[in-house]
């Protein structure tokens, strides 16, 4: 009887010890990371979750037929990277990138073949000069009694105190010019921080939907995108917004917010687009990638992915003004002409 008890306890201790480290015993093996496996994973995930195949009329299956034969098992990482990067470039989307420790693939066709009409040296010398104000991330100067606000990146945070100062300065100016040319985007929150001080009532400016499945038409229902007015002082006068082809992503959203504002007018060239929110993911070999996973349309159902059109197009060579920025000059004229 005593021996049986000892055996029982021995079995228990053995069982308790054996069941330790279970989490390590059942841990999955690393996925296959051969060039073929990496290619298949990337192609399949983009096939399932990219949001603009129909709108851009891209046959992703035929893209696979082109790039798949270029994959072979002994290819070097940089060669694989180049093939995958070129495959992703077929999407012609600034929100699509492949990232490795040695390179970042991109497609910048949305601005590369277009004049930008933005000369930082000219802006610094003629308009901002040396005595401009620095209000958070914004460079601010008086131009012909208008408040000129130059905002270079939506990645840099605009605080409520920054906007309080802009609104305070508007007491001494006849109109507001917001220059977001070549602003590549960043946080949409900063766009809201500006727009919410320029409205008195909630404003719907666009509609958005997200992919919900692998089918090209698997999306959530459209949902309104709104700007809600902030508490505190507001400026409800005229606003001129300057954009170009390099105004992208959150800057496109900001341009659309301003377009929906009755007292605002867009000048210059259309924005570059970037209406899909980028989704991030990782490949079996540790490289990461991103791609658009949503769609946004304006109030007329036009995709923001293809850019926001301006109210006053200023891209004709005859409109250039030597020694001056013709976008700013056109904005000043409009602000002065219709008080």
């Amino acid at each position, binding site marked *: 009887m005593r021996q049986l008890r000892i055996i029982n306890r021995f079995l228990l201790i053995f069982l308790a010890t054996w069941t330790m480290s279970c*989490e390590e015993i059942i*841990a999955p093996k690393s996925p296959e990371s051969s060039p073929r496996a990496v290619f298949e994973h990337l192609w399949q995930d983009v096939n399932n*979750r990219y949001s603009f195949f129909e709108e851009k009329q891209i046959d992703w299956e035929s893209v696979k037929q082109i790039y798949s034969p270029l994959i072979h098992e002994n290819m070097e990482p940089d060669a694989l990277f180049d093939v995958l990067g070129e495959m992703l470039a077929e999407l012609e989307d600034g929100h699509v990138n492949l990232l490795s420790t040695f390179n970042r693939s991109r497609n910048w066709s949305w601005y590369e073949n277009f004049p930008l009409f933005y000369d930082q040296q000219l802006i610094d010398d003629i308009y901002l000069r040396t005595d401009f104000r620095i209000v958070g991330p914004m460079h601010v100067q008086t131009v012909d009694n208008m408040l000129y606000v130059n905002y270079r990146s939506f990645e840099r945070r605009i605080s409520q105190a920054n906007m309080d100062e802009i609104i305070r300065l508007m007491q001494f100016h006849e109109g507001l010019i917001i220059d977001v040319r070549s602003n590549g985007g960043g946080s949409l929150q900063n766009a809201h921080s500006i727009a919410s001080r320029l409205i008195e009532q909630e404003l719907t400016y666009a509609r958005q*939907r997200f992919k919900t499945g692998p089918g090209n038409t698997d999306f*959530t*229902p459209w949902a309104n995108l709104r700007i809600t007015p902030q508490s505190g002082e507001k400026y409800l006068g005229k606003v001129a917004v300057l954009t170009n082809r390099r105004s992208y992503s959150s800057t496109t959203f900001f341009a659309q917010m301003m377009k929906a504002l009755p007292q605002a007018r867009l000048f210059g060239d259309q924005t570059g687009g970037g209406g899909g929110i980028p989704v*991030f993911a990782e490949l079996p070999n540790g490289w990461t990638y991103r791609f658009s996973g949503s769609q946004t349309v304006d109030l007329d159902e036009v995709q923001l992915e293809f850019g926001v059109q301006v109210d006053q197009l200023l891209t004709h060579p005859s409109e250039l003004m030597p020694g001056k920025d013709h976008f700013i000059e056109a904005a000043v004229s409009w602000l002065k002409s219709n008080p």
Partner: protein
Amino acid sequence: MKNFLFLIPFFLFLHPVLAQNKKHTLLLNTGTQNTWERDFAYSPLVYAGSNAGFTLGFSGEGHKKTDEVYIHYSRLPLQNQFNAEMSATHASIMTYTFYKWDWLPRQLNLGWSNNNALSLRNYQDSQNFNPRFDFHTSFGPAARFQTYFGKQQQWRFASQAHLQVIGFLFSASYITSPPDPFLHEQSTFNAFMQSISLFQPFRQHDLGMMNQLFYQLTNGNEIGIGYRWHYTSLENAHRSQRSGGHYFFQLNFQL
């Protein structure tokens, strides 16, 4: 209504069990937790690492029934094989109810368990739709083996296990962190109700086990060591998997 009549004998049976006097114990434990986690919505790679895990528990033991509640929390910095980082937060409320049946050996108890578990995964390299998450509430059978030994029976070894078979799941969507019904205009309640999916046997998995060895002090309190293991695999818009082993030191205070 007829469908619920079977509950009457169940409650009649349960009443004497609930009415009995119980020994109440407060449990506190901490120790190293090793975890791996994988969310196919972001990566096929496994993220693994370890950190401290904490558990606060309560036990009520009667002649016929034992109730246990464990509230567990851990926040873990995990890495994949390429050193990319993910911050994992795990929180759960796990309950066990064990019944002492006369037809079973004295050391063996059978019962059921309920797990309410939240997993948040914050990937360092993902700038949008972060963190991804799963929350599930599930129920299933549980078993416990408990034996006393030593000259004065001052040592106690307990081993218990559970397997969740049915419940509900609430998790991140195909693309975004919030479930899809939260992405368009409707009341939060409706969106929540539409976001809940069934925790189905064989499609979702939640199982675990806990081994503990305690020494009873003269004042009735216990000190001990233990190992708690769990494995969860959930499939909703994407599959996510995780497993953890918590090696802990525990104090049990008689209340």
